[in-house]
């Protein structure tokens, strides 16, 4: 109950334009979860890390719809008009050379790519000319996550997960407001007990080009 009140309070503050500081949770009015013009678009965090199980593979994560209480998670879904897109620049110019596009329809997620974008930038069309991977969206309360792989070694997941982000958000807001001058010890994780709607893609590094380092970012786009 306490958690639900916390989440509701944060969303309320976002709507009122309050000062917020989280990873990217409810960062902008247009993508704030409930009541926004584009629910489901709010990215909370992006992760990119070498697979703990296999050094030759990279894991990409895009988390959305932050601060979901367990009750809210049970009814949360990925909107069918939203594209969740990983962008990969492997030439050092901060323009995407490859995209991985994730669509969810009728309880399934389909992942297109990695593949060259049609036109780089803020508008995207689905690129169907690269690898395609499909998985059932894992439901809330499922005993184990549904995962799927394709012949290119791409492995995918979509569904609710615990929010991996942690931060004493409340204390930081007090500091910004001038009512506190330092963090407390121990701090209090404002994201404890809350969930996100998560998409995870693991793939061979070779599918991301042969650069020594890449730049990665996540986008949500809708139609």
């Amino acid at each position: 109950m306490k958690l639900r009140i916390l989440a509701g309070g944060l969303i309320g503050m976002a709507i009122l334009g309050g000062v917020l500081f989280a990873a990217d949770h409810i960062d902008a009015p247009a993508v704030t979860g409930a009541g926004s013009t584009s629910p489901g678009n709010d990215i909370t965090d992006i992760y990119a890390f070498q697979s703990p199980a296999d050094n030759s593979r990279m894991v990409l994560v895009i988390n959305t719809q932050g601060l979901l209480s367990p009750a809210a998670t049970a009814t949360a879904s990925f909107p069918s008009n939203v594209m969740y897109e990983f962008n990969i620049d492997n030439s050092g110019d901060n323009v995407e050379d490859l995209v991985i596009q994730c669509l969810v329809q009728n309880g399934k997620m389909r992942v297109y790519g990695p593949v060259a974008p049609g036109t780089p930038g803020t508008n995207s069309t689905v690129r169907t000319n690269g690898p395609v991977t499909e998985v059932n969206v894992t439901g809330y309360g499922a005993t184990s996550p549904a995962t799927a792989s394709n012949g290119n070694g791409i492995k995918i997941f979509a569904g609710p997960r615990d929010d991996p982000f942690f931060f004493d958000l409340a204390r930081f807001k007090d500091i910004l407001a001038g009512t506190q001058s330092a963090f407390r010890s121990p701090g209090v994780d404002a994201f404890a007990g809350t969930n996100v709607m998560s998409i995870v893609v693991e793939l061979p590094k070779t599918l991301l080009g042969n650069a020594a380092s890449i730049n990665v970012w996540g986008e949500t786009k809708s139609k």
Partner: protein
Amino acid sequence: MLRINKHYLLALFAIVSLGATSCDKDDVDDNFDTSGTYIQNDQMARPAINTVFVGSARKNEFNTTAPSAMSAAFTAQFLSVLTGFGYSSNALGMDKATFAGALVTDVLNVKMNGPTTFFDGTNVLTGRALADDVIDTELLLIFGGASGGSNPGLTRDNVNANDKSFLSVFPYLAAPF
């Protein structure tokens, strides 16, 4: 119910009409709508960049700006926020202009060989792993000064780990509450 029946019929139709020769790419269904143009709503790479450095009036604009265009559009804004924080330098030796320039293009640098972490005590900005204490790293770089020792009450939030353990196997993130 109607929807399930429709898909069942579509599936039957596909099987009957295309038969075993229809092995397309990865044996995926053919009833996905891939039409239309998708227009950007949110963008993110490094944690907390938009939330901290962009004023509420321009947050939507930041989210719909391509990373390659962020520097031209937002550097002045980032400089002004750093000035407000009393920033002069950090443990990476970045003066205000250098730090603003590094932050304003919101992409996550990811190394293709070796450890991938926001900061693990040795490696800096080579990716972002689930357990990384990214907030402490950013607080240290913003408030810690050149030595990392300035403003000790502001350079760590004392929440050092997630409230659930991560999985050792795919999909790595913990099950929901």
